[in-house]
Structure formats: C-alpha cells, structure tokens
C-alpha cells in the first residue's frame, strides 16, 4: 500500500460566480508522477494552482472543501502560505527566467530565506542544475543573464530553481507545451529521475506525454474529475466513455 500524501476531498473552486472545479476527490501517492490530462478550460491548471495556493492571487477566487497535504489543511487558518509554496514548487507553461543571472535565478528562493553564504549557494546551484540536467550546458556561464538561454534550457532552469528550494512536491503546468521534441525529451528524462526523491504532479495537454511518464493519470473535464487510475488502465480500458473519446481525439 502506497503512502497517500495529498488528500483532496469534495473540493470546489470558483472564480467569482463561475465554478472552475466541481467536487474533486482524489489522492496523490508519495514518489509517483501523477499526470493530469484534459482539454483546455477543464480546470487542470486551476487545480494545480489550488495546491500551492497561487490561486489566492486572483481576485474573486474562492474554494470549498478540503485539501490535506501531509496531514495539514492547506486552507486552514494556521497555514503559512509562503512555506507551503516552498514545499510545492511550481513550473509554469512558459519558462519564466527572472531578469537576472542564471546563478541568481537558482538562488532566488534561498536568498528570500536569508541564505547568503557563497559556499552553500554554490553547492545548491551545482546540485540543482545537475538534477535538472542543465549543469554541463551552463556551468561556464552562470553569471550571464538567464534570458539568453534557449527555451528548453530556460524551462530546465525553472525546474532547477524549484529544486533549489528542496521542495517535497513538484507541480508542473504543461511544462513542455512550447518546446521542441528534443527539449521535451530531456525534461521528461529529468522528471523520471526526480521521481525517486519527489512527488510530481504533471498537468499536460499532450496525452502521449502522460502515457510516457505518468504512473497514474487523472482525466479532468469541465471542472470535474472524470476518472483517475493507473496510466495503462486509463489508456487501454478507461471506465468512462468520455475519457475514451478524449484519448481518441474526438474532442479537446
């Protein structure tokens, strides 16, 4: 029996009057890659943002129900949002390097915490870039602007930047949607390697990507969780007709 680390119970989310997530129930296991697929506007990105409360930043955002992460109610009154966001690192669809050097991008989160020892930061930079599979490409130009990297490199930089904070969870929101096949492959390789240390939730609009690297896959449609199961089950004998139709490319 795998350890359940995230429990989502009767969870709904609203933007003003519009309901974007409707009564979601699902569990996430430790050290798995959970793929989330579904057409545009199905609520998958919103779901991800709810997990580290980035949805707070959008005016009119409101939730019902519960999400427990490591036993902690993340919408409870005692929650430290800043600590939560450090624990659940987020990688966005478009790579967004901050306008600083590669080095400063990686240590950004650590500097916020007041870590300034050069030796410590150097180690973190090398370690994170290594894990994200970028070290060899950039080790000689850490002090140059991160904006000069290629798209694929920028996205791996974003992954490294998240890893530098030693999160327990990595949330990825269509991380390869703007990248070429080779960059995509490199990122997928990194994710497979990262699985042993982190729990990964991967939202993707590319169903094949979920088939390639997700242990389990969830299918979202119009704010509802249609079904969630082991990836091979979802892709070969889904329970719901809508899942089958989506995977066959009949809509979405």
């Amino acid at each position, binding site marked *: 029996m795998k350890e359940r680390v995230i429990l989502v119970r009767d969870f709904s989310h609203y933007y003003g009057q519009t309901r974007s997530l409707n009564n979601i129930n699902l569990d996430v296991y430790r050290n798995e890659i959970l793929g989330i697929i579904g057409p545009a506007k199905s609520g998958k990105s919103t779901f991800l943002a709810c997990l*580290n409360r*980035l949805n707070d*930043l959008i*005016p009119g955002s409101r939730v019902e129900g519960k999400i427990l992460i490591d036993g902690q109610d993340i919408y409870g009154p005692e929650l430290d949002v*800043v*600590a939560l*966001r*450090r624990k659940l*690192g*987020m990688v*966005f669809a*478009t790579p*967004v390097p*901050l*306008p*600083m050097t590669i080095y400063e991008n990686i240590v*950004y*989160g650590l*500097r*916020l*915490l007041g870590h300034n020892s050069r030796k410590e930061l150097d180690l973190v930079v090398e370690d994170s870039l290594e894990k994200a599979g970028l070290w060899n490409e950039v080790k000689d130009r850490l002090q140059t*602007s991160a*904006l000069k990297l290629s798209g694929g490199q920028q996205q791996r930089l*974003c992954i490294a*930047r*998240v890893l530098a*904070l030693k999160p327990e969870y990595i949330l990825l929101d269509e991380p390869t949607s703007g990248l070429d096949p080779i960059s995509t492959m490199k990122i997928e390789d990194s994710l497979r390697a990262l699985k042993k240390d982190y729990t990964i939730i991967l939202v993707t609009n590319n169903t094949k990507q979920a088939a390639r690297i997700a242990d389990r896959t969830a299918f979202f449609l119009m704010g509802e969780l249609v079904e969630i199961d082991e990836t091979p089950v979802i892709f070969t004998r889904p329970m719901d007709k809508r899942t089958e139709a989506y995977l066959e490319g009949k809509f979405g």
Partner: protein
Amino acid sequence: MGNLLRLKPRTEQKIAQFFMYSLTSVAVIVLVFILVVILKNGLPQLNLEFLTKNPVDMGRGGGILSTIVATIFLTFIALLVATPLGVGTAIYLTEYTVESRITRIIRFGAECLAGIPSIIFGLFGFILFVNKLKFGWSILSGGLTLAFMVLPTIIRTSEEAIKAVPSCYRLVSFSLGSTRWQTVTRVVLPSAIPGIVTGVILSIGRSIGETAAVIFTAGSALRLPSSVFSSSRTMAVHFYILAKEGVSMPKAYGTAAVLVISILIINVITYYLMEKYIRRKS
C-alpha cells in the same frame, strides 16, 4: 474623396513622407535655434571665474557660483522628498490595491496636481512653508514646493514602469515563496528602474528650470547658502532677474548657457548609465 483624389500608393507614400520629414525638421530646427542663440550669446561669458565666483554688484559682475549651489541643493531636496513619495504611491496603486474607487480618486488627484500652473505651487508653498511652518524664504521651502510640483510626474511614470513589468515575474516570485514586499523589491522595482529613472530625470529638468514656484519660496538672496534655511537664488531665478530688470544681459546669457549645458549633461549621463543597466539585465 477616393474618386476625386486618387493617387498612386507610391505617390501617396512620397507625399506622406515629405510631410513627416517637414514636421520633424521643424521640431529639430526650433531646438537647434534655441541652443544656438543661447550658446552663441552665453558661451563667451563662460570661464572658470564665472563658475567659481559669487555674483558681485547684483550680478553685474562676478560669477554665478551661489546660484549653482542653490540650484543643486533645491533640486536635491525636491527629488529626495518626491522620489520616495511618488514611487511609494505608485507601488501602492499597482501592487497593493485592486483597481477601485479609491485608486481612481488618487490617480485623478495626481493628474489634477499635474495640471496646476507652477506659480500656484509657488503661492501654496509661500503660504504653507514660508509663512505657516515658518521656514521662511529658504532652500527647504523651495525644495518642498518643487517636490509637490514634480510628484505627479514621478507617480505617473513610476506607475507606468511598474505596470509594464510582466505579471509572470510576480507569479514566479510568489511561487518561489516570496512575500509581496520581497517580490516588489527584488523583482518588480529592479525591472521598473529605467522607467522610474526617466520620471526622475524629467523632474530634475523641471526643478532646475523652474522660476515661478521658486521665486516665491526660496527667495532671491545672492549669498552662498549656508544651510537649508538660507534664502537663495537659483540659476533660473537669477537669469529671470538679470534679464527682466536689465541688470546684465551678457551675464543672463551666461547663466542660461550653464543651465542648458547642465541639463544636457545630466540627460546624457543618465541615458548612458541606463543603457548600461538595461544591457546588463538582458
């Protein structure tokens, strides 16, 4: 219209181009004309003595050192007060509130402030700082008055600069566990600096050249100012008095030349520094 005046696209293009060139040339010619007149009359007055000696005999003789010092102090105080106030307001309006009635009122207020003639600021400064607060005619009164005068410019340009920072930077910063303040100071402001600096430079230019607001608040004493409470005369006021009261036209042109050249130098230096800053960031 289309039938009456059908021109070939290429002819049309030529005519349009000609008009654009003419309009641009008019603007440039006016600028060059002003510069030539001032420098032609002013440059012969310039020498080391003019810059390092205080005015003698109401400005008929000597140099303009005290007015240069007064101008620097006054502008410095104005910007020292207006920059934090203006940038702070801009940060509040863009980062800490959502668009609402209150933000609209603040913005409207700032805009009205921008439309008030400078002589009214002078009167306001005279009543508030010189009389009520008893700062007298002084660099402090003048500086504070100028600060209020340039405040709207700084608010507006800073706000535009902050708004232009891509919102994804903020999102990323928050997702890496930063507070709002950390996001503002570490990501938003560094990216907005070039725009903010532009506003500050505009304000420096206006402060250096301002006459009406200053003459009412800083006075027109010719001594070298010894503290912020000294009454003193800026270059612009000096020029105005020399020219209007017919004290000495050559000295007036000399002062004008120094004024124009210093504004040029400030502009060139800041654009150079900003260019460097932007290149380092991208």
